[in-house]
Each structure stands twice: as structure tokens, then as C-alpha cells.
């Protein structure tokens, strides 16, 4: 099945769909502005570093639109340049816990603070411990003021380009993930192992968010040859994990860096039952990489 452009005659707009878009993508309107001032519906960044091209998008999900609530995903980008070493990209992606009203604040705080720590060269375990403590303090103060609860997942990546290889470190809390798209257009999960829930009776979506009790995170170092890297929240990650159609479509779209606004539209693809916020940071080799075709 090939991706299609759906058309909503009532709203007079086109949207990208992968398979069945579902009723929500076709019927939910843009909705009112949220009661609380917060992040824009769609956030877009782009950057070019030695050997690397970066595109980052965060997009508000369908139900947040219909409920006039804020986008709770966030991303942050940074760089670390040390004389005599390859320049590194710092990419942070956070997914605020939807059941807590102020999780957009948690996602924004954690993504920005971790990106700052990363750009100073602080190790990810140390940075996560410090930011978890800071988030706990902010969340406690907000709870005392009856301002609403907050929590977030986070995945942090530091990566540089060495020849045709990606060399870096990743750390995470919760189910936001780092993926590699290889030159054969195959997707591989870099952070942790792909959950094999085929033997379980039912799917369960429980995750452990920040702030964590002990400030810990899971982390790994990686060296991957060629291809491109994608840091993302589960709004895209789950679809990638579970749908061969999504894997094939996104691989064909993202084998090479798309034009930034096209990338934003692609990240917001419609697919039935996938109504969550979406955030993806894509990192591609800049220039000709003979293995990435």
C-alpha cells in the first residue's frame, strides 16, 4: 500500500496518510486555542554541521487539538565543539505524560536542561541525575500550588560523524527511542531491545517517566556504519515498531534528508489509532555517502 494524500472537503486541506487515516484525522478540526499559553502546534528546526544535516519536528496530536490542550512533546538541539575532536550534535526528545496537566513544562524543561548539559560535555548519567532532581523540585512546587502534575520521558543522544560512521552515546528514561535507518532501508532500534510482546496476552503501555526515584537512566555507546539516525517519541516510534507499512513508507521518505517543511508534514502523517503528539529529530550524513543511497 502506498502513502496517500487524504483530502478533507470540509476543512479544505490535504494531509498525508499511511494506510487508513481513521475518522479522527478526517473529522477533528483545528479547534480553539488552549486555555493556557504554551508551545506552538508545530515546532521545526534545521541545522547543518560538519558531515551532518539535522531536521527536527514536534507536532501536536489530534486529541490535544480536539480538546484544546497543549502539545506535550518537546525537543532540543545543541552542539559540542572541542578542538581536535569531531563536532557533535546533541539531540533531546521528550514526551510529557499525558495524564498530568503540566507535562508540557516537564518536557520543555528536561529537553532544554539535558541539551545544555550535553553541550557542556557532562556525561548522560550525571546529567539525567541532576535534571531529574531539578524536575522533582519544580513538580513538587507546582503540586503544592495546585498548578497540576508533570512528568516526562526523555532520550538524549550525542553523536559525531567519523568517516561514514556514526559514533555516539545515548541515554533514556521511558519509551522515547533512537533508531537507525540503514542503507538497505531497514530500521534498527538502537536504544534497548525491541519489545517482543507477541507472547503476552495483551499489550500494556506502562512506562517509567522522569523524575525517577534515584535519577538513574539507561545508556549505551554506539558505532554504526552509514545510514541515518532518528530520535523520536512513541507517537512515531510505536507506529514504526508495529507497522511494516509505516516502516517502509518512512524509510522511503527519509532515506535522504527531506526539505524541512516536507519533513514536518511527514512526521504528522495520519494513521488510524495513532493520535498522540509526534516528535522526530533526524540526523543525516551531509554530502555524498556512497553507502546511503
Amino acid at each position, binding site marked *: 500500500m502506498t502513502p496517500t494524500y487524504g483530502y478533507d472537503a470540509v476543512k479544505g486541506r490535504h494531509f498525508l496518510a499511511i*494506510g*487508513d487515516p*481513521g*475518522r*479522527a484525522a*478526517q*473529522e*477533528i478540526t483545528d479547534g480553539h486555542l488552549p486555555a493556557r499559553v504554551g508551545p506552538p502546534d508545530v515546532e521545526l528546526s534545521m541545522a547543518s554541521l560538519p558531515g551532518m544535516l539535522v531536521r527536527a519536528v514536534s507536532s501536536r*496530536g*489530534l*486529541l*490535544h487539538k*480536539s*480538546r484544546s490542550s497543549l502539545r506535550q512533546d518537546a525537543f532540543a538541539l545543541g552542539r559540542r565543539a572541542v578542538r581536535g575532536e569531531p563536532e557533535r550534535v546533541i539531540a533531546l526528545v521528550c*514526551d510529557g*505524560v*499525558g*495524564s498530568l496537566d503540566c507535562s508540557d513544562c516537564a518536557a520543555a524543561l528536561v529537553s532544554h536542561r539535558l541539551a545544555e548539559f550535553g553541550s557542556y560535555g557532562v556525561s548522560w548519567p550525571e546529567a539525567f541525575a541532576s535534571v531529574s532532581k531539578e524536575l522533582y523540585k519544580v513538580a513538587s512546587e507546582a503540586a503544592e500550588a495546585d498548578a497540576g502534575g508533570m512528568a516526562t520521558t526523555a532520550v538524549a543522544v550525542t553523536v559525531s560523524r567519523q568517516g561514514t560512521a556514526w559514533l555516539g552515546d545515548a541515554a533514556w528514561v521511558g*519509551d522515547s527511542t533512537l533508531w537507525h535507518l540503514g542503507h538497505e532501508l531497514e530500521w534498527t532500534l538502537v536504544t534497548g531491545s525491541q519489545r517482543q*510482546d507477541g507472547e503476552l*496476552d*495483551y*499489550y*500494556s*503501555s*506502562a*512506562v517509567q517517566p522522569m523524575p525517577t526515584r534515584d535519577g538513574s537512566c539507561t545508556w549505551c555507546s554506539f558505532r554504526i556504519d552509514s545510514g541515518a539516525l532518528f530520535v523520536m*517519541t*512513541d*507517537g512515531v516510534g*510505536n*507506529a514504526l*515498531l*508495529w*507497522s*511494516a*507499512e*509505516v516502516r517502509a513508507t518512512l524509510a522511503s521518505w527519509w532515506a535522504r534528508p527531506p526539505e524541512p517543511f516536507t519533513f514536518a508534514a511527514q512526521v504528522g502523517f495520519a*494513521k*488510524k*489509532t*495513532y*493520535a*498522540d*503528539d509526534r516528535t522526530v529529530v533526524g540526523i543525516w550524513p551531509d554530502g555524498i555517502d556512497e553507502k546511503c543511497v
Partner: protein
Amino acid sequence: MSGERVTERAMVEPGQLVMPFYLVCDVSGSMAHNIAELNDGIRRLWRAVVSEPVVDDVSRIGILTFSDSAKVVLPLSQMSWNDVPALSAEGGTNYGAAFRLLAQTIADDAACLKAQGYKIYRPCVFFLTDGEPSDPDWDRTFRDTLTYDAATGRGMRAHPVFVPFGFRNASEHVLRRLAYPLGKGKWYHSKSHNVEVALRGILDVIMNSVVGSGMSVSTGQPTLFVRGPAPDSGISSGDPDVWV
């Protein structure tokens, strides 16, 4: 029904999320004077789900009835695909017949959805009854068909969350025994003598639970929310009895 919807139904899309809900309705003879209110309540549930596209996309709802025997009157499906069936009253109150058919239906539906690549959440059963069971071994049948003993491996490992609702002559003791499992299941008992009011309160809880659970799909951590009764509804509720 539009041709587009028929096409949609025929499409199999691996990776889609499904939250299954089963509504199991007592249609014994004692319900004869209130079957219209029950049908109205089910139609309100239908409208509530269909008016929320996100909920309609992710939820699947099946309706079973029971009296002397049990039957599936609406196979598990997306609400907007179907009109709701009109229920009619008949016969006795055989809980066991409902439990056996429900367990088989859940197993068959789960196997069918999994084979098509859907990601299924644990089903939730809303069990409505206005009387006491007429079958003496109802609790053994319930335990054997719809609960699971991890220590012995006996029962239904893929058991649903079971949420019983009782009114009129339903026994709170029985409802407490049916709520399952501990920590997820809840029982509800309406003490209102006005059956119309009781049914409206009960179906409001069901409607809010289905819509609230379906809405949680947008959070990335979809969760079953079994809502509490409205404060002025005259409905008491509680956690399951601990099975010994």
C-alpha cells in the same frame, strides 16, 4: 452505511491499537418493563462513542445478552460501523451461560485480532444485572472461565477486567464476588428504587469509562479508566472481594 466505511472494514492494518469492551446485559423476564430504558442507554453510549472520532477509532464494542441462555447480539466492532441492536426481554437469569459464552467470545476475538496484527489491550467487561443468579454454581463457573490463578496456571490467563453493575434485586454480595481482578475490577450497586434512574446512572458510568479510556490513546499511554458514579446517582461502588 457508506461504501467508504465498508471498504474500511475490509482493510486489515497491522499495528493498529484496539481497546475491546464488552457489554453483557441481563435480559431476563424481570427486565421486560425496563427494556426500553436499557435500549435508550445503549443508544446514548453509541452516540457518545461515535461523536468522539479518536474513541471510535480505537475502541471496539461487543454486546452480549443472557437470560436462560446467552447470545452475542453485536459482535465486537467499531461503533460507527453498526447500528445498535434493540434488546428484548426473555426467560431466567443464568449467569453461567453468560460467563461461558463471554470467555469463548473474548478468546475468539483476541485470536482473530492478533492474527491480523492488531495490538490489543486487555478487554473490559461491563456486566449489567437486575437479579440474583438462578444457576447455583455461578461462582465456580465464573472462576473457571473468566479468572486466572497464576500459582496453578488454571483459568483464563487472558482474562478481562470484569466490572459488574447491579440494580433492583441484584445482590451486592454477588457483585463483590464478580469484580475482577483486584486492583482493576470494581463493582457498582444502585440502590435506587426507580429502575430508570438506576439504569441511567449505570450507563453513564459505562459511557464515561469507555470514552475516558478511548481518549487516553492520545497520551501515548492508553489506560483503562473505570469511572466512579456521579455523587447523586445513588450508586455505591467498591473494590473486589479477595478470593480465598
